[in-house]
């Protein structure tokens, strides 16, 4: 018998771990209207961003794909998309993309409604109806195989690579063994250990994909360094990394990669896309905390697991972010922000395996409804869509 949690089964077979209505702006011009509508109805969350117009080509398409993917995420029971009317990414277009999930989704266009107040009034009524329908839904027992977690990290320190990341790797391996999925990304931070990750690929094609995305990321970085005024810096490792005890780029990259445990890499996929396989997945995404989380949520991750050595308070609207620190001092300083103290590995109170089990059990508890500290305190900073040059 596999592990289970209490979730919200959706029309398309996916399972939500939260049940909020999302009010998504298709363009930055609609951000305030979307926020006001969300403020009017409890159980609703605003998804606002600075994009959606003045963009072209692959950058525009990646923004569209990401917004549609976030809207399809099973944590949202229904979605209202608010547009202005003349933007590049229109509300009706996003509705089409989100409707593929089978969930209720509607468009509201400010220029068609008349003005801010009329748009807010109509949007509030729509979302009120959506929130009532969501409130009537009940959690049901679901298999852990329905879970996808995003592996991310930020504000790392010496303890990240020796405690929090390897402990998260243990938890990730446990979820993958249950048939669930775990998404590794932050590709720039894998540079130097690509040969080791490629060795874990399920087949030669995936191994090629691993080498290709990490190689592309390194080439892009080199190009930027050559054309910037900071060519004297090493962009992969810092003086602070050395002072903390990291001795090489490979050492640093492996410390980050430890989040993914030892499971085989099942698939490599692009930012804005959703994976087609289960297991450990590599998302071709950037290292910035919010952009990485957003790509993972667009790919269907219902929970983000986030090791942080120095401590960061950020969260994602409608998606729980579990903060894990390997630093006992950070845990005592940031108790209101950090969910799990893996600093027990440093102090000798727990082994990595025991700390990993603690994280895994927390994933199941959070999936069943336990709010993370970032949720309880209302942190929503991580919704940031990555851009293409």
């Amino acid at each position, binding site marked *: 018998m596999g592990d289970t949690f209490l979730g919200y089964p959706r029309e398309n077979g996916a399972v939500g771990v939260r049940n909020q209505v999302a009010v998504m702006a298709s363009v930055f011009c609609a951000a305030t209207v979307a926020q006001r509508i969300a403020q009017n109805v409890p159980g609703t969350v605003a998804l606002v961003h600075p994009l959606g117009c003045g963009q072209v080509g692959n950058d525009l398409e990646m923004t569209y794909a990401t917004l549609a993917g976030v809207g399809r995420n099973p944590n949202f029971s229904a979605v209202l998309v608010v547009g202005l009317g003349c933007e590049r990414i229109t509300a009706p277009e996003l509705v089409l993309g989100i409707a593929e999930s089978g969930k209720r989704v509607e468009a509201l266009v400010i220029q068609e409604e008349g003005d801010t107040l009329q748009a807010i009034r109509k949007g509030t009524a729509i979302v009120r109806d959506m929130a009532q329908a969501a409130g009537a839904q009940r959690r049901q027992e679901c298999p852990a195989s329905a879970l996808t977690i995003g592996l991310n990290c930020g504000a790392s320190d*010496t303890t990240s690579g*020796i405690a929090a990341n390897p402990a998260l790797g243990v938890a990730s391996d446990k979820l993958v063994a249950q048939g669930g999925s775990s998404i590794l990304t932050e590709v720039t931070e894998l540079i130097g250990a690509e040969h*080791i990750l490629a060795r874990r690929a399920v087949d030669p094609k995936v191994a090629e994909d691993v080498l290709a995305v990490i190689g592309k990321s390194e080439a892009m970085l080199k190009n930027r360094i050559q054309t910037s005024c900071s060519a004297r810096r090493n962009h992969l490792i810092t003086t602070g990394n050395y002072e903390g005890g990291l001795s090489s780029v490979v050492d640093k990259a492996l410390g980050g990669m430890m989040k993914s445990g030892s499971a085989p890499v099942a698939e490599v996929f692009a930012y804005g896309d959703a994976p087609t396989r289960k297991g450990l997945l590599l998302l071709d995404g950037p290292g910035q905390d919010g952009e990485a989380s957003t790509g993972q949520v667009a790919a269907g991750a219902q929970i983000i697991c986030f090791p942080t050595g120095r401590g960061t308070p950020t969260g994602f609207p409608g998606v729980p972010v579990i903060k894990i620190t390997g630093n006992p001092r950070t845990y005592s300083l940031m108790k209101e922000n950090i969910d799990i103290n893996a600093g027990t590995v440093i102090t000798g109170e727990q082994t990595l395996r025991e700390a990993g089990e603690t994280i895994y059990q927390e994933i199941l508890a959070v999936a069943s409804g336990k709010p993370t500290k970032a949720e309880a305190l209302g942190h929503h900073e991580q919704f940031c869509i990555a851009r293409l040059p």
Partner: protein
Amino acid sequence: MHQEGLSASQTKTALKLNTKDNVAIALTDLAAGDVCRVREDHGETGEVGVLEDVAFGHKVALADLAQDAPVVKYGEEIGRAGAPVRKGGWIHTHNLYCDRGMK
């Protein structure tokens, strides 16, 4: 008044992250002359006499390493010894080389 923190008489520990590793990570600042316990995930697996100061988070050698021997952490090669290193010695950028990502 008694001073808080680790005194020389207290046990010091280093974490060996993978059974294949030939380095362990200092979990407190280690000083020359310390006898440091080596902890693995399945328990304590030995001791190492510390030959020089090794700061928290830095690497202490668990075996004698010849010039150019692979330095193994997480079960993987993270670089090679730039000079012979004795068991109990500090391994870092001064005696480890790895060109990957540096050019």
